[in-house]
């Protein structure tokens, strides 16, 4: 049996390895970040963050938790509207032209009594007025007063079926032009957030009818989460068991584009 000689790595070669290693490390540092953050595997690991955050926040928050409420003096002189500031479709413009008198909110999905409600019907539901903060995912905030029907009251009137787990809001605005219609704005929340005391379908802002840039005639207010959860221009509300087969399947327009479904931070 022939003995294979033990390889002896000469010093020069070792230096070569070192140089190559350093060069590799350098280029890794430069291009590595780009490659790492482009990898699906890495982004699916990073997504665990949203699970931990939701678990932890649900653990410490009671179902009756109330976001800080402010005084009238705190109301911002310059609020800001983000995303769509006017849906500007023929159908929406027609509704807006006569003060949304012909607008109807469709309530359906996994409910005992599907409903079609006018703005006046919604105004007759148990309501709540609150001065709360609006926190955008971009980092800015403003404080405003909102009044609206409690979502819990509306869902009680419709009667949720036992299999209902999420409430989906379909909106009148298209934020991105797509061929398959997945650019239509929509959002979803679960029943814990839907039943919170401050979760309202707002038709009034700062004492006036909800203006178009802020989601007329009806928008969601859920001050325990970030702005993109609070769907504007709501046309239809569905109770569903899962949102996997809605649009691109992540539970909302921004969620379909990488943002966290749970937006408590």
């Amino acid at each position, binding site marked *: 049996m022939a003995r294979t000689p033990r390889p002896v790595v000469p010093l020069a070669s070792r230096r070569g390895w070192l140089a190559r290693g350093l060069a590799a490390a350098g280029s890794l540092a430069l291009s590595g*970040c*780009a490659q790492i*953050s*482009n990898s699906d595997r890495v*982004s699916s*690991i*990073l*997504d*665990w*963050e*949203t699970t*931990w*955050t939701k678990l932890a*926040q649900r653990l*410490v*928050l009671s179902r009756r*938790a*109330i*976001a*800080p409420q*402010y005084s009238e003096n*705190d109301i*911002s002189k*310059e609020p*800001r509207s983000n995303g769509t500031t006017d849906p500007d479709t023929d159908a929406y413009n027609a509704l807006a032209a006569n003060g949304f008198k012909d607008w109807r909110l469709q309530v359906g999905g996994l409910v005992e009594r599907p409903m079609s409600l006018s703005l006046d019907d919604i105004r007759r539901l148990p309501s709540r007025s609150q001065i709360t*903060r609006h*926190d*955008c*995912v*971009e*980092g*800015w*905030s*403003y*404080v405003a007063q909102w009044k609206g029907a409690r979502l819990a009251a509306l869902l009680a009137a419709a009667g949720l079926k036992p299999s209902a787990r999420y409430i989906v809001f379909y909106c009148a605005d298209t934020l991105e032009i797509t061929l398959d219609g997945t650019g239509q704005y929509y959002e979803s929340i679960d029943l814990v957030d839907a039943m919170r005391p401050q979760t309202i379908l707002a038709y009034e802002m700062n004492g006036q009818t909800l203006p178009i840039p802020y989601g007329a005639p009806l928008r969601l207010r859920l*001050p*325990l*989460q*970030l702005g993109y959860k609070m769907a504007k221009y709501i046309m239809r509300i569905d109770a569903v068991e899962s949102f996997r087969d809605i649009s691109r399947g992540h539970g909302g327009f*921004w969620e379909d*584009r*990488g*943002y*966290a479904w749970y937006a*408590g*931070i």
Partner: protein
Amino acid sequence: MDAGPPGQERSSEPRVRLGERVLRDGRLAVYRHPLIVRLWHWLNALCLFVLLVSGLQILNAHPALYWGSSSDFTNPWLHFGGGDSPPFPSWITLPPWQDLAAGRHWHLFFAWIFAASGLTYAIYAIASRRVRRELCPRRGELRHLGRSFADHLRLKFPEGEAARHYNPLQKLSYLVVIFGLLPLMVLTGLTMSPAMDARFHFLPLMFGGRQSARTVHFLTACTIAAFFVIHLLALLAAGPIREMRAILTGWFVIGRRKGES
């Protein structure tokens, strides 16, 4: 070798204690950083790096800072950049291109690791009395703070027996960073969470509003970045190989080589 007068130089030569090793060149290897401290140091360094670059990615989404509860869009306290392009360039953000959603995932993922490992370290350091033994300045030590500061500026670092322990300036800066700035990052970060504000109403009150907390978050990050630069300069001045060996293996070499006067 000369016997020399029994002056300060001689008395500061380290004496060997149990568990310490005398190197062949006469210097003394002291076990200075236990494994948990070294692990936390490097994990924390990684976290702070990712948090900084992903934090700048997030700041790029709205590069303005305010004080109070809400944003005064026409009069921000601080505004970065001028035009429409993001002010923080791609080489210092994660991901390098503009992507707020991904930046937030990076940031919050590493924020969890940062907070969990920091808490583990803090519990260990307090329970093992390491904070009291190694980090809290001894009585009278603070009086030498001025001299310690001047020595640092002249790049003169304690040698010999005195090098067994952190010097007063080191102790104070580590204490401020570990038990001041790092927890402040977590608290201001949590204050930006609308859900956490609903659970802990004192959070926004403590910092004077969510936007103030966001501004303090940024300023504290800048202070930590400045600490990092000074930390690196000190490493280079005090001997990078010796210091790196200490924080990698735990063994810190003190004293003089044989034949050095």
